[in-house]
């Protein structure tokens, strides 16, 4: 065995003896004291009777009343908000409903003024207006073949129309062609000449009946009056020839 091997052997033996030496150990009281201190800091709880008095600064601050009753206060605030806002909302809604009922009156007035109303609406107020219109007598029309132009709205009716936009009438029809507008202009009687009870067509028919009856004089007289009243009204060729013969 070389000196080095001998040293290694002795070191191993010495290490074994060192490991076998009795060693000091911490007492159970020391362990308990350390654990108690650490546990007290980690999980603070109610102090035992034999615990040393803790400083007030070391105590955890108690939650304030506001924080403690945060949830109930929030619920109460929400409830109060609902109780305050609900009547306000109801009042506002009632105010919103009133103008709708008021606006029916001018709409009805506007519809009654129109000879042939053409209202397109599914609203209940429009239904009421239609029923009232049905109860009214139809206006007399001089020229049933072509509807007269809608009357120019008065300032009051224009304001009422603006106040009730939900009862908009149908959009105005596209402007008629030039020939149709000429025909309407020719059909329009000259004020003070045309009889108020006859249309130009009926008037011409009465003149033709006079001609058929052989009453040329009255026929010529009526023809002259007709031409003054309706100078541009078209006349059938056969009738025009017979009337020319009278002249």
């Amino acid at each position, binding site marked *: 065995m070389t000196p080095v091997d001998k040293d290694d052997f002795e070191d191993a033996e*010495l290490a074994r003896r060192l490991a076998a030496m009795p060693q000091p150990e911490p007492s159970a009281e020391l362990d308990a004291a350390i654990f108690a201190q650490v546990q007290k800091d*980690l999980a603070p709880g109610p102090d035992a009777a034999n615990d040393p008095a803790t400083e007030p600064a070391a105590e955890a601050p108690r939650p304030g009343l506001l924080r403690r009753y945060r949830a109930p206060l929030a619920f109460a605030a929400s409830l109060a908000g609902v109780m305050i806002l609900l009547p306000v909302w109801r009042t506002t809604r009632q105010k919103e409903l009133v103008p709708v009922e008021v606006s029916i009156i001018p709409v009805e007035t506007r519809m009654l003024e129109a000879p042939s109303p053409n209202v397109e609406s599914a609203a209940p107020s429009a239904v009421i207006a239609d029923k009232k219109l049905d109860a009214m007598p139809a206006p007399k029309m001089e020229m049933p073949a072509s509807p007269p132009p809608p009357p120019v709205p008065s300032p009051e009716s224009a304001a009422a129309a603006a106040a009730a936009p939900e009862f908009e009438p149908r959009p105005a029809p596209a402007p008629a062609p030039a020939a149709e507008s000429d025909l309407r202009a020719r059909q329009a009687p000259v004020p003070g000449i045309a009889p108020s009870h006859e249309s130009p067509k009926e008037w011409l028919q009465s003149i033709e009946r006079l001609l058929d009856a052989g009453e040329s004089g009255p026929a010529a007289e009526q023809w002259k009056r007709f031409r003054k009243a309706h100078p541009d009204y078209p006349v059938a060729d056969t009738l025009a020839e017979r009337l020319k013969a009278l002249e």
Partner: protein
Amino acid sequence: MLPDQSDDDLMLRYRDGELSAFQELYRRHSRGLYRFLAWRSGRSEWADEVAQETWLAVHHARARYAAQGSFRSYLFQIGRNRLADLQRQPDIDDCGDWESVQDSAEATALGRQQNLALHAAIRQLPAEQKEALVLQHFSGLSIEEIALVVAAPAETVKSRLRYAMRKLREQFRQEETA
């Protein structure tokens, strides 16, 4: 499972308030620390006092603990510094009263005598050599951990251990020849 976790992981969990993590750390290192303090101070009451202060210092500094892979070195450094503070007090007698044979009532008469001789030989070692020997053989620290605790290079620690073992070996030979 806590026993499978590293010291640093346990320390981080303990920092977050987990008491069981502290208990596991204490179970692993309380004996080694206490042996080191008892051998180095030579007084059991000092070992108790410094051991308690050391663990409470770890407890109070847990929020500042930075995991660096050697909780044991960190723990032993605290204990060593605390003990040094205590030993610097002027009215302290550094002569230890702790005897390992006090706790070896079951040992045989020969073994008790051998332990007494070995105990005396260790106490006669220079402080640095004794410290390295105790940390390695009684507390189970590695060379690197001892180097961190005593703030010396690892080669210096090896040299101190080598000299300490040589002196104890000579003592061992004298016993055999006697």
